[in-house]
Every structure is written in structure tokens, then in C-alpha cells.
């Protein structure tokens, strides 16, 4: 009912979309401000990070522009698109103006965004938490998010079931959001991480979903949208982001990995673990993947699944899992931990290779 200057009635869904656009605009304005203010090497890094985040934002915005259910928002969606385009233009100009060495150095410092998937029990949490800590030990800033509605990542990180959820003030109820809850208005993703993420071993910043079976039954449902909003919008220059997804195909199907520029598929020795990986790959098609074999003894590789890293079976890791402690603390230097270090080298080295061959937009 847009006539006569009447206030426009929005559905809850439309309101939720508008709020998302506002939050994204504010998060990008924050990154833009960082880029404008930064000096020296940090300046190159900040522009490279902004450019990467804008790529994601533009990509994520396209389906909204085409969504028939959002026709009423057409002017708002178009305005958001041109806002993104203006930022893209500025970021592209700034990145192009960098000399090649400065750009390469910035891209090395620019963080990885990694989603970890696989069958239950394959070793997703062990690999996510160990890689997060090893990256942090290199002096990198790391944000680790546990997207599983059951406890797991915290044990592998070394903090067990220590409370690491978003507190109630970071969440708000909203009928238009999936599950009826979202990140509180006015709370930007980087603020949520800085204020609410627990600082774990080696300085890894950690947030987790609420868990099913907690006394407050709805905690998992309340926090899932907010945590995904944080992952999607958190693009602080120089931060690595790792998301440890729930077992199996449901969360990749729901695009929990959409924040990531790389998906790590963890495969155990069982035939069913390989079957799961074969089923997961088409679901995450469109995002680059690497395969990591875990608890490897000397089996032949699963057909069609060529691992980049083989994390060997390691009794010391099994013992740490039994006790619910971090393998990195219980079994430092063990063969599995050495393989995780190789994975970290691959993850950070891969970046060099990409920057060698890719022209940043």
C-alpha cells in the first residue's frame, strides 16, 4: 500500500531482509573506514580485505535481486546493489594502485576463511581446532566458530564445555528470521567477536552455538542465525576464520559454508566416510575444496578422493579424545599433529599460489 505517503507495511520476512542489508552496509562501512584510516602495510591489507568481502557481498546479493518473494523491496535491493558497486569501484582502484609486492604481502596476511565438513566422527573438530591453534601460534588472528548443536570443538580446542555462546544481549527475537532469532540490532559482526568470543588456548577467539539438551531448550535455535550472520559479515583485515560444521550433509545443504572461500572435507578410513565425502562434494560445489584423510594407516586412497594431507592414525590423539582434551596439548609433536602443521602450511601457502596467479578485482 504505497500510496498517499502511508507508511509501508512490511512483512516480517521483508523486515528481516532490510535489517540484513543495513547490517551489511554498516559492516562494509566499518571496513571502508579501516581502509581509509590505515597507514603503511596495514593500508594495503585493509583494502585487500575490503575487496574480498565486497566480492562475497555482491555474490550473495544477486539471488535477492531475483527473488520473486522480495519484489516489494526492489528499490531497496537496487539501492543496496549500487552502494556495493560504489565501494567495489573504490576498492578496485585502491588495490590496483598497490605495487605488486605490497599486494602479494597483503594477500599473505589476509586471512583464510575455511569451512570444515565430513561424516560424523571423521575428525572435523580435531582438525578445525588444531589448525586454528597452529595458525594462531604463527601470530595470526583466528576466529573459530563451532556450528554443531552438540559439544565437540571445545574439547579439541582445550576448553571442554566452557561456556562460549553468544550472551542473550547479543541476540534478539524476530519473527522474520529463520528460527525466530537473529543477531541483535546495532551489533556488528566484528563487535560481536571482539566483545563476546572467548579467548581460548594460543589466543584463538571462539564462539559456539547453543547446544541441544541444555536446560534452556531453545539455545541452539536462538544462536544459529546470529552465528552465521557473524561469520558472513566478519571480515577484519588479517583474521583467519574457521567454521566447524555439524556432521553430514544437512548444514552444507543449508549453506552454512557460504562464508568460506575454502571447504576442507575430512574423510576417515571407513568406506562410509568416503561415501559421505562423495555425497558432500556436489553439495558444496562452487567453493574450492581440499580433502584431508584422517586416522590414516596405510589404506589405499578412497577412489575419486585424492587427499592433500594424510593425518595418520595416532594413539596419542585417540587418548586425548578419550579424555576430552586438546591433542595439541596432550600429544605435541605426535605424527598427527605434525600432519596438521603440514595442513596449515598448505593453507597459508595455498594463498601465495593463488595470489601468484589471480588478479584481485
Amino acid at each position, binding site marked *: 500500500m504505497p500510496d498517499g505517503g502511508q507508511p509501508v507495511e512490511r512483512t516480517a520476512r521483508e523486515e528481516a531482509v532490510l535489517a540484513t542489508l543495513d547490517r551489511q552496509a554498516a559492516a562494509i562501512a566499518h571496513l571502508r573506514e579501516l581502509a581509509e584510516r590505515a597507514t603503511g602495510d596495514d593500508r594495503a591489507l585493509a583494502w585487500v580485505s575490503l575487496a574480498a568481502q565486497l566480492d562475497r557481498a555482491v555474490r550473495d546479493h544477486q539471488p535477492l535481486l531475483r527473488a520473486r518473494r522480495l519484489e516489494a523491496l526492489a528499490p531497496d535491493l537496487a539501492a543496496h546493489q549500487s552502494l556495493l558497486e560504489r565501494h567495489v569501484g573504490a576498492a578496485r582502484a585502491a588495490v590496483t594502485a598497490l605495487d605488486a609486492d605490497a599486494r602479494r604481502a597483503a594477500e599473505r596476511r589476509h586471512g583464510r576463511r575455511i569451512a570444515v565438513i565430513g561424516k560424523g566422527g571423521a575428525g572435523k573438530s580435531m582438525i578445525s581446532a588444531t589448525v586454528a591453534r597452529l595458525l594462531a601460534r604463527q601470530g595470526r588472528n583466528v576466529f573459530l566458530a563451532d556450528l554443531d548443536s552438540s559439544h565437540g570443538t571445545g*574439547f579439541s580446542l582445550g576448553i571442554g564445555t566452557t561456556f562460549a555462546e553468544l550472551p542473550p544481549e547479543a541476540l534478539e527475537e524476530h519473527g522474520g528470521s529463520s528460527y525466530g532469532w537473529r543477531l541483535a540490532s546495532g551489533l556488528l559482526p566484528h563487535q560481536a567477536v571482539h566483545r563476546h568470543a572467548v579467548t581460548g588456548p594460543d589466543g584463538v577467539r571462539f564462539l559456539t552455538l547453543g547446544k541441544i539438551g541444555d536446560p534452556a531448550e531453545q539455545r541452539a535455535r536462538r544462536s544459529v542465525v546470529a552465528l552465521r550472520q557473524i561469520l558472513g559479515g566478519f571480515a577484519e583485515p588479517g583474521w583467519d576464520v574457521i567454521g566447524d560444521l555439524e556432521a553430514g550433509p544437512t548444514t552444507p545443504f543449508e549453506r552454512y559454508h557460504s562464508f568460506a572461500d575454502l571447504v576442507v572435507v575430512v574423510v576417515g578410513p571407513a568406506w562410509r566416510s568416503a561415501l559421505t565425502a562423495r*555425497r558432500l562434494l556436489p553439495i558444496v560445489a562452487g567453493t574450492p575444496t581440499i580433502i584431508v584423510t584422517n586416522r590414516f594407516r596405510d589404506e589405499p586412497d578412497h577412489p575419486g578422493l585424492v587427499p592433500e594431507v594424510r593425518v595418520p592414525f595416532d594413539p596419542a590423539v585417540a587418548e586425548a579424545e578419550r579424555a*576430552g582434551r586438546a591433542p595439541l596439548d596432550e600429544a605435541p609433536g605426535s605424527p598427527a599433529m605434525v600432519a596438521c602443521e603440514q595442513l596449515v602450511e598448505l593453507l597459508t601457502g595455498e594463498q601465495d599460489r593463488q595470489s601468484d596467479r589471480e588478479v584481485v578485482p
Partner: protein
Amino acid sequence: MRIAVTGKGGAGKSTVAGALARHLAGRGHTVVAVDADPNPNLGLCLGLPQDAVEHMEPILNALLASGHTHNDPRPDPEELLARYGMEAPGGIVVVATGKIERPSNACLCCGSHNTTREFFGGLAADGRIVLADLEAGLNDLLWARPGPDDVVLAIAEPSAKAVEVARRAVNIAQGMGVERILGVANRASDGDVAQLAEALGVEVLGVAEDPAVEKADEQGVAPFDLDDTSPAMADIARVADWVLASAPAEAQAAPAPPR
């Protein structure tokens, strides 16, 4: 009788469910095995060949392929069972509720959990055993909604993570009024069994760590078919004893009380 099998991913839900179904079928019971995991692979543990498991068409996928839409009324579970059930060794009928295989499998998102409820609660359970192997984690247990007449098996391997998930599963099941709850300590030593029993506060049976199961897993065959008398398979026979003893009336195929 209805049995729901739950626990952390990788704890051994399908291994226990598959072998339990074979043991029960071997004792003359009619068994309907429901694979509620959107990554269905229970068939393998029941003894179906790899190719059949890899390419099996679950109910929701088959319905969608036949032109069924989101808004059409879903056929009765018994009819779906007759239409899409596959026969596994031992005369077991197995159905998978849904398989996520493409980013565009619309419907499965909201469908697969609902189907779990339909197939756990909606299939007649008098004179036969409906055994559901749930998705990893606890979400599917909330959807399956077992009640006072049902059996819940909470499977854990000896890791702090798996024990924590099983502990929560027991609490949830108790909250739903389930009385017959058994913890299963998989790949366990005697010490692990005692530890799990203490953590869960319910009776726990152990399933031994067993190289034969590991070998079967690696090869992609049912442990029961590789060696049905291996230590783990013998332990699962004791789980079958417990399940049957927990419901003496139903074990004699008496009609189930109304739900």
C-alpha cells in the same frame, strides 16, 4: 516395538543398529529398519551391497522425482513402506527417509526431519520391530519424539565428546517419558562401560573394540556378514537380548498398547 538409535556421529549408531536388526531378524522377528539419516548408509550395515547403498532412492527423493510437490498431502507411511521399502538380508525391510545430494534438493530441508517423525511414530509397531537409525547429533531425536512405549539406544564410543552427546540424549529421552533407555558403550573396554554407566545413569552394555568391525568398515561391508560371531557381534546379540527382555509382552507379538 519401536527402537530409536541415537548418538554422536561416528559413535557407531549404524553399526549397532544394523547388527541389532540382523540379530532380531535371525530370531524370527519382523524388522522394519528406518534410515533417518539424510546421509543414509544403514543399508550397508544391514548387508546390502555398496552399489545399492550408494544409489538407493529414499522416500522423499522418490516422491519428488515422481512429481510430488511440497504442498501435496504425503501418502500414508505404510503405503510408502510398501512402495519404497527394500529387502535386506534376513528378510529385513529397510527404508531411507531422504537423501541430500544436491544444493537444489528443496523440500528435504523441512521434509527429512518430519519424515523421521512419520516413520518412527506412524508405522504400526505391533507384532514387528520398527528400528530407526537417526541422524548424527540430537536434533533428529527431538523430531523422532519417542514415548513411554519406545526403546531408545544411546550409543557412545569412549571419547568425552560422544559421552556428552549420549548423556544429553538420555536426558532428552527421559524428558519425553521414555522408560526403556539403554546406553551402549561402543569400541569399549570394561572400564569404559562402567564410566559410561556412571555418566548416563542408566544401564549400559558394552560392544567390544573389534578388528573384524574395523575391517568390515574399511571394506564397506556389513560386520555381521564378515563374522557374525566376532566379539562385537556377540555383544550386540546381548543388546538384542536386553531389548527383547525389556518388552516381554511385545516379544510375544502381543498388540502394542495405544499410543
